[in-house]
């Protein structure tokens, strides 16, 4: 289980990455309700939504260490 580094909410990485559909030409689709993520300096960070991710991106150093990857 990862932690949203901004709001501290628990995020199930497997659920966020789990395929729930497929695009017309075969890419995996995920459920947008299960949160989002961010590849930052070589590490994936997980967020409950775009709002937390936007806050993280504005000042990543202030949040790194608060969450897990």
């Amino acid at each position, binding site marked *: 289980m990862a932690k949203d580094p901004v709001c501290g909410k628990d995020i199930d990485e497997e659920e966020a990455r789990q395929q729930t559909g497929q695009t*017309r030409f075969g890419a995996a689709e995920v459920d947008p309700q299960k949160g989002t993520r961010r*590849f930052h300096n070589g590490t994936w960070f997980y967020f409950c939504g775009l709002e937390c991710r936007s806050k993280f991106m504005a000042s990543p150093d202030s949040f790194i260490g608060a969450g897990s990857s």
Partner: protein
Amino acid sequence: MDFAFTPEQEQLRQEVRDFIAENVTDSVRAEVEDAMDEGHGEEYMKLRAKIAERGWIGISFPKEYGGQDGSRIDQYIVEEELARVGVNVGLSGSGGPAILAAGTEEQKQYFIPRLIRGEVTFALGFTEPQAGADLAGLQTRAVRDGDDYIINGQKMYTSSAHYATHIYMMARTDPDAPKHKGISIFLFPMDTPGVTVRPLWTIQNDPPAPMGTTYGMGRTNETFFEDVRVPASSMLGEENMGWYVGAMGLNLDRVGASRYLISVRRDEDIVNWVKENEFDGHSPSEDPEVRDRIAEMWIEAQVCRLMTLRSMSIVEHGGNFTYEGSAEKVWAPEHGVRTTEGISQILGPYAQLLNGSIGAVEDGVFAHNLMGSFQSGINHGSVQVMRDQVARRGLGMPRG
């Protein structure tokens, strides 16, 4: 300097109009427009095949790759006529021109004919959550591993990722190089393992934009790449030269008529609406303020059209194309915003009613265009970045 079309070009325009009258029926248009948010449907593909049979798609591309070695302006004439009925016969954005300019022979042989036939479509994977206007700040990485690269990262606003066959994307291949110099471009199928698409819904999604909306889509996406392994042959151009290949493709694509063509239909729709409707026995076209406003929009649209044709003329004559596409990319979207605002003033309070509302004009098409028009000034190079390019490349000013 001759601003007129040649007799042969006028004949081509008439042939396209005759083709449209015969083949673009209301049912075809309905299917084409209904399918836009989910990619093209069966009717569109049949229509596209008929258009391609006539040699009208990719006219300016070399014959050896399925084009006609023809004039870009001939291509423009075909695109302009088809835009009037909502049919887009573009080649999936800046990927085609970039492949033609920087691709290997194998890449050209594979991709260009398929783009022309509509069998290959690209999702554009440039923008990232923190790298849009500052695109060179992108963080997606590609690391060489034997004959492959392994890609990790994510892209934002990959608008056609849910129906594209391939992605045309930038990744950082040298994290230690200055940011513009460590980037490479890759082309690979969307079904490559490790590619994941997450839907993002826009203001055009609920209620859904009606037929005839020219601005914005109901769905876009973010696309994730997690240990995506692609062969080194997927790279377009040389390693670490992707910034320049991508910029060249975007610049060449801006020569295209798409920005202007977005406005053709919207501008013509409002002209037709004011001429065809009556209120209390009077047509809005009799109102001097309405007439003035529409005339003003038309004049602006002609500036847009002339800028487009000038850019094409420079390319046709082998000229050095530097800032002209950027200038168009400022004028066309801002013209779009001004006209959608002007239309909303003409229609008054009814202009705000969206699809499904009682009293919505033309199912809310003008209201949806008003909402979506602002997007056009942001995507594929924001108007602010474009102004900077005009200042530097066109006016010789220093980097700010």
